[in-house]
């Protein structure tokens, strides 16, 4: 193990440009820490999408409601795995919960996470599915019957008063949930933003940029899942819903992009002592991941595509398949873009020396805990969990009902064109 590390570091040595402090050869936060903010971002974003339905009464995106909640849960369950497995002593992770140091931003993770999981997401999902679970328990036999009973926490109340309470509870939870989702991901941004030693991270805007990029990635991913899963489940994609969701995605991308541009301009205009090394890093080490993938492919191109469908909406309103394809490409590009954003923050922040005199390099390994394979596994795991969740808590009735809300009422009326 140690010999591998030494060999790995020795390989990096000749690639160092300029001067770095001798302890800076090793990049300490690798692929797993890139995966972590990406995953929590999806959680926060998916939840914000769900809250559009419940709090802001955007009825068109009702088919995405349950899917986005389950997506948030699937990703939230994986988030701590990335963190724990990157520790030098994964077996000691509980120390962070038992003896947290209150001055540490990282120590709050357990509490923010537990709050979000228990007080928001699980509660909301439970209230959403309570009456369904009671009904499913009636339909099923054997083990599954017991499973649904247990999942419903043995509640059997399907009276109008009970349902009424569910609705009220849901509203309250979502209202608490929005700031909580903001807290979850803003907090992840703060972990980076509060490091004064590192000018690439240290910025008040970082938590906010994280938030909006989270919203972008979450909404885009749920749209992506919806567009893939619906045909697989034998349904028809509800374009009114997708149009509306893409609308929100579009605005979120614009806000996210503007924030990043503001930060960039601010940095360049202030031009503090680290500017030389940062621009050198930007033009060499991060050129591909930041300028090409994050900005060009992950933001400008999808923005352009969605803008085209909006500007020529009369033409595109006729051709649903073309619109579907364009949306699909956009949300896929956005996913890559947001992943690149996380990469550029985490890895980029460690590639320049704190002496501002040189750059090190990041060599990703293939196998091992910090390797590519494990990271891909962690990225796929939420999809597997989501598949199981979809099996246990099927959202089909809601997802496949075209133009109808959860209770089967028609909503929205005729929409002549997307973005109208």
């Amino acid at each position, binding site marked *: 193990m140690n010999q591998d*590390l030494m060999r790995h570091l020795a390989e990096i040595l000749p690639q160092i440009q300029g001067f770095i402090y001798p302890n800076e050869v090793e990049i300490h936060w690798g692929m797993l820490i890139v995966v972590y903010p990406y995953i929590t971002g999806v959680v926060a974003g998916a939840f914000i999408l769900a809250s559009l339905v419940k709090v802001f009464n955007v009825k068109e995106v009702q088919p995405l409601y349950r899917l986005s909640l389950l997506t948030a849960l699937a990703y939230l369950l994986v988030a701590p795995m990335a963190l724990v497995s990157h520790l030098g*002593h994964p077996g000691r992770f509980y120390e962070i919960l038992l003896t947290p140091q209150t001055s540490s931003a990282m120590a709050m993770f357990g509490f923010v996470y537990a709050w979000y999981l228990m007080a928001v997401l699980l509660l909301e999902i439970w209230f959403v599915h309570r009456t369904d679970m009671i009904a499913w328990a009636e339909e099923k036999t054997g083990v599954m019957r017991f499973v649904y009973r247990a999942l419903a926490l043995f509640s059997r109340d399907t009276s109008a008063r009970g349902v009424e309470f569910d609705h009220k509870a849901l509203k309250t939870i979502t209202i608490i949930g929005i700031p909580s989702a903001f807290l979850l991901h803003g907090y992840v941004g703060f972990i980076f933003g509060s490091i004064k030693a590192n000018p690439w991270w240290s910025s008040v805007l970082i938590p906010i940029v994280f938030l909006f990029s989270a919203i972008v990635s979450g909404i885009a991913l749920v749209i992506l899942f919806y567009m893939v899963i619906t045909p697989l489940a034998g349904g028809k994609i509800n374009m009114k819903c997708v149009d509306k969701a893409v609308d929100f995605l579009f605005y979120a991308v614009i806000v996210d992009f503007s924030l990043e541009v503001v930060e960039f301009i601010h940095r360049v205009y202030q031009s503090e002592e680290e500017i030389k090394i940062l621009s050198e890093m930007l033009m060499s080490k991060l050129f591909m991941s930041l300028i090409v993938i994050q900005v060009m492919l992950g933001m400008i191109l999808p923005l352009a595509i969605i803008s085209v469908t909006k500007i020529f909406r009369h033409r595109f309103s006729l051709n649903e398949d073309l619109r579907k394809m364009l949306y699909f490409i956009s949300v896929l590009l956005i996913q890559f873009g947001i992943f690149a954003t996380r990469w550029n923050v985490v890895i980029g922040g460690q590639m320049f020396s704190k002496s501002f005199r040189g750059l090190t390099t990041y060599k990703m390994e293939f196998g091992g805990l910090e390797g590519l394979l494990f990271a891909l596994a962690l990225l796929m795991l939420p999809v597997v969990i989501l598949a199981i969740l979809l099996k246990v808590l099927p959202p089909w009735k809601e997802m496949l009902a075209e133009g109808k809300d959860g209770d089967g009422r028609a909503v929205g009326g005729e929409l002549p064109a997307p973005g109208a």
Partner: protein
Amino acid sequence: MNGRRRFLRDFLALLCSGGAIGGFLKLLPGSAHAKETVRTGKWYGYGVSVDKCIGCGRCMEACKAENNVPKEPFFFRTWVERYIIRKNGETAVRTIDPGAEPVPEAALDKSILRSFFVPKLCNQCADPPCVQVCPVGATWRTEDGVVLVNEKTCIGCRYCIQACPYGARYLSPATHTADKCTFCYHRISVGQLPACVEVCPTQARIFGDLNAAASPLSRFLRMNKIHVLKPGLNTEPKVYYANLDGEVR
């Protein structure tokens, strides 16, 4: 609502709000309280006389031997940087390698404006950002002002490594926990000098108690113009440099 109930409710509210405010205050950096307390016991500091360092690297070797620091050139509790500033304004910096052949005398190269060595080590900050960010309190500052790491509780999250502005920390490949200069705590607590100070042939490194009235360190601080590294970050370093060049970061 009867009186007892109201009292209970108010009491609970007081506890909650007190806890919240107290927790918030603890989130703020410790600078405020650090400065106010009058220090009576020992308060260790360190002096570096830049002009005296000849770049022999014996301190680096002594440190690695004394503290079982891995010998590979990726882990250092202390190191020496060589600065070569040319007339055209270019600055070249590198970490010296004590095992390697000595470099040619800089004076022979006419394009060099000035050249010097700068020993580096953990600054044992009075307001250490590494301690602030440690999620489990495994790194802390002792009463006598030395920042230490408890390798039994460190979880190896490396947040402290990210938070250190001086690159003074590394993850020990042996213990998988954060590691750094301790001022040779095992030596200074029995009245000896840190290994690097002991072996320095030119007395470029000076160690002592900042509260002591008469000591080599207090004399050093009295006789020199002093600077610290990255003062703008408000970490209050306790490694003091005499004749530090502006190029040094």
